[in-house]
């Protein structure tokens, strides 16, 4: 089936990754952060000094202790980094040697879905899955209504999946059949970009194939689920990225457990973009050396819309496949609100820049204005491709009116679906935070 997304926005940024390998050399420091897994409450299972194998559980989720986050490497626990109220911020690991990122595991060929789910839980592959609603790790007992795999990323400067999956094609294929068993034959939806290089995905049988066209968020799984099989209260849909499918596939096909990630270094502040291989939790500090073109920068794990700032501990988040570097903003401009703004980027047409043919805009992290109340009431609708009234839902979320949120379709959305609303909002509303806080409230209520 073909789906055309008409509402949305492709933000043009400089610095898309070119198809070269950056030859990133891993250091021996690794950090596993509970915050990478949404709303996971960690219960520590290791102590400082413990020796680890790839797949040794580091912490479990207090809400369901079957869900464990495992060590991505063979080595030793160096330190447990704690923050306020002794909350675990990261488990610091040291790798034993350069080959210590995979592990051969022997297990009898699983015959049913239950065994597969058990193995995935045991070896820390279960957290590759996320579920809608809430975008959390799914409960191992709930069988999903369907499984969604978005086969393209439409967010700004997103890497090409054909490059990320290079060499992992067979694992991806096997991963799909594993997921079919794990989900007890729930329908699997592969959502591809119309006209893109879809060779890997088109060869898969026994799945529903969908083709999307149009601007971002066409590649967001939320948009795709909404168009194909909308979620209602009580439904659970699993979703995961193609790299994660390949990771699961490799484990069940070659019996190799490993948490390698291939990712792209992108962004307007990067002089030499490209792709690099890393392992979940690896320290990325060395990645930025001699590759940036600006001095004061913000490094982001993920894209500029939904990523998080890399602060003291620069690692790629568990589900990410992109690092974006943008210039830090905050430069003040004399009567900037009055000037023509030839180089200012705006979705609105209030700056003259929209008339310019050469589309090189200045992008930095400036907020460009003060926080106001909801005022421009039609701007969200232009970038929100859901049959949901965004302003009404945001207001219900803001006041945490759970009944109203449910009626207005909160189960279908995640905060990332509101990222574009947040970008274009002249009142500088923190739309993603409003939705995320509401989802927390909703989850506690249910």
């Amino acid at each position, binding site marked *: 089936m073909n789906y055309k997304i008409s509402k949305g926005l492709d933000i043009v940024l400089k610095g898309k990754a070119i198809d070269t390998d950056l030859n990133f050399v891993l250091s021996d420091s690794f950090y596993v952060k509970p915050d990478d897994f949404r709303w996971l409450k960690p219960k520590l299972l290791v102590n400082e000094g413990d020796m680890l194998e790839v797949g040794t559980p580091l912490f479990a989720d207090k809400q369901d202790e079957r869900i464990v986050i495992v060590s991505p490497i063979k080595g030793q626990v160096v330190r447990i980094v704690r923050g306020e109220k002794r909350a675990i911020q990261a488990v610091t690991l040291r790798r034993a040697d350069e080959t210590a990122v995979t592990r051969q595991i022997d297990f009898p060929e699983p015959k049913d879905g239950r065994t597969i789910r058990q193995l995935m839980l045991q070896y820390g592959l279960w957290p590759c899955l996320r579920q809608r609603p809430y975008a959390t790790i799914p409960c191992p007992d709930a069988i999903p209504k369907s499984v969604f795999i978005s086969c393209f990323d439409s967010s700004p400067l997103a890497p090409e999946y054909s490059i990320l999956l290079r060499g992992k094609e067979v694992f991806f294929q096997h991963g799909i059949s594993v997921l079919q068993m794990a989900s007890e034959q729930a329908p699997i939806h592969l959502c591809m970009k119309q006209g893109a290089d879809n060779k890997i995905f088109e060869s898969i049988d026994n799945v529903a194939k969908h083709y999307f066209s149009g601007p971002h968020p066409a590649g967001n799984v939320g948009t795709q689920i909404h168009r194909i099989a909308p979620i209602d209260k009580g439904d659970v849909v699993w979703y995961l990225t193609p790299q994660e499918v390949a990771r699961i596939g490799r484990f069940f096909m070659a019996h190799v457990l490993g948490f390698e990630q291939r990712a792209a270094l992108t962004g307007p502040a990067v002089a030499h973009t490209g792709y690099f291989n890393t392992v979940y939790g690896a320290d990325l500090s060395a990645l930025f050396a001699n590759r940036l073109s600006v001095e004061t920068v913000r490094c982001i794990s993920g894209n500029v819309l939904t990523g998080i700032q890399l602060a003291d501990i620069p690692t790629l988040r568990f589900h990410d496949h992109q690092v974006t570097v943008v210039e830090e903003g905050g430069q003040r401009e004399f009567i900037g*609100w009055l000037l023509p703004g030839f180089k200012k980027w705006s*979705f609105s047409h209030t700056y003259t820049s929209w008339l310019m043919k050469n589309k090189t805009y200045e992008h930095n992290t400036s907020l460009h204005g003060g926080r*106001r*109340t*909801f005022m421009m009431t*039609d701007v969200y609708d232009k970038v929100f491709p859901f049959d*949901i009234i965004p302003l009404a839902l945001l207001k219900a979320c803001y006041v945490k009116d759970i009944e109203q949120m449910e009626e207005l379709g909160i189960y279908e959305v995640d905060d990332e679906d509101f990222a574009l609303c947040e*970008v274009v909002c002249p*009142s500088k509303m923190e739309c993603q935070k409003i939705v995320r806080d509401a989802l927390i409230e909703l989850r506690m209520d249910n």
Partner: protein
Amino acid sequence: MKNTKFNALFEAIDSFLRTPATVTTQGSHIRDAVDMKRIMITVMIALCPALLFGLWNVGYQHFIRLGYDTTVFGCLWYGFLKWLPLVIVTYVSGLAIEVLFAQLRKEEVAEGFFVTGFIIPMIMPPDVPLWIVAVATAFSVLFAKEVFGGTGYNFLNPALVARAFVFFAYPSVISGDSVWVSHAPQDAITGATPLAMVMNGNVEAMPSMLDMFIGTIPGCIGETCKIAILLGALILLVTQVADLRIMLSVLIGGYVTAVAFRVGGLCAVPGYQQLLMGGFLFGAVFMATDPVTAAHTQTGKYVYGLLIGILAIIIRVLNKGYPEGMMLAILLMNIFAPLIDYCVVQANIKKRKKRVLNTK
């Protein structure tokens, strides 16, 4: 001055002079360069053609009634001298209250009043006493906006509330035949607006269609020149600041109703002429499109606009007391806009419930 009791004022002036130094801390890392200041300045730019013509017209109407010859610049200067005190009084009285409330709430001063204060002098008669403008502005800012929580929480258009206040509290300065021309001599040719002529059955004396379109007729500063208003509309639409849905549906609603009255024999003027008279076009372009007080849902905007057009013409034709219906029509629909939105939102909810039933 920062972090003192003048913080709100300091912040307002500081961010007025230089764009703020704030950077994103959560959510999306890059943001649109547009902010409410930019939106408001765009609306003010869109108002400028109507203002410039209006200033000239104030002088022109004054001088031709007195029988003087004058230059373009002379008319403009006369109008400017009439307008300047009005605009100063409006901004001083309105902004004082805005800053005070922003300080009490420990918020930044919102930009909404820049446009409100710009519009108020454009919809008042040129000779309106300044103290009445000050009182009306203060009333509207206090009771139409601040008591509800400030800009963004108001459900009535503050500029129209100011006008309605004058209209009901001091009717003599804003109604009748003589108020729309500055210092109109009592014995000279009447300064009645076309609307008043229609109401009094004096259709023969009406100015030509071309005069009404160009705007060389008595009226408020902002409303007379339809060319300038259409130019403003173009600016608002091209910059995507105002909503075409509302503008179009107000015009369609007004036109259809006017034609219906004409066919029904209740009104002597043709339909299109109703759209050129009085503040209909100015209201449709600059007042009805206020995003805060209009309907917020996309479908709701059509209903909201249509009803404004329909009501404005109904009030004009059927109510012999008020020659102009646009102000009351917009204020009335401001009050009903939340109800329209409620219906649209409920329809969306119903659709979702139906989907659940179908899939289960």
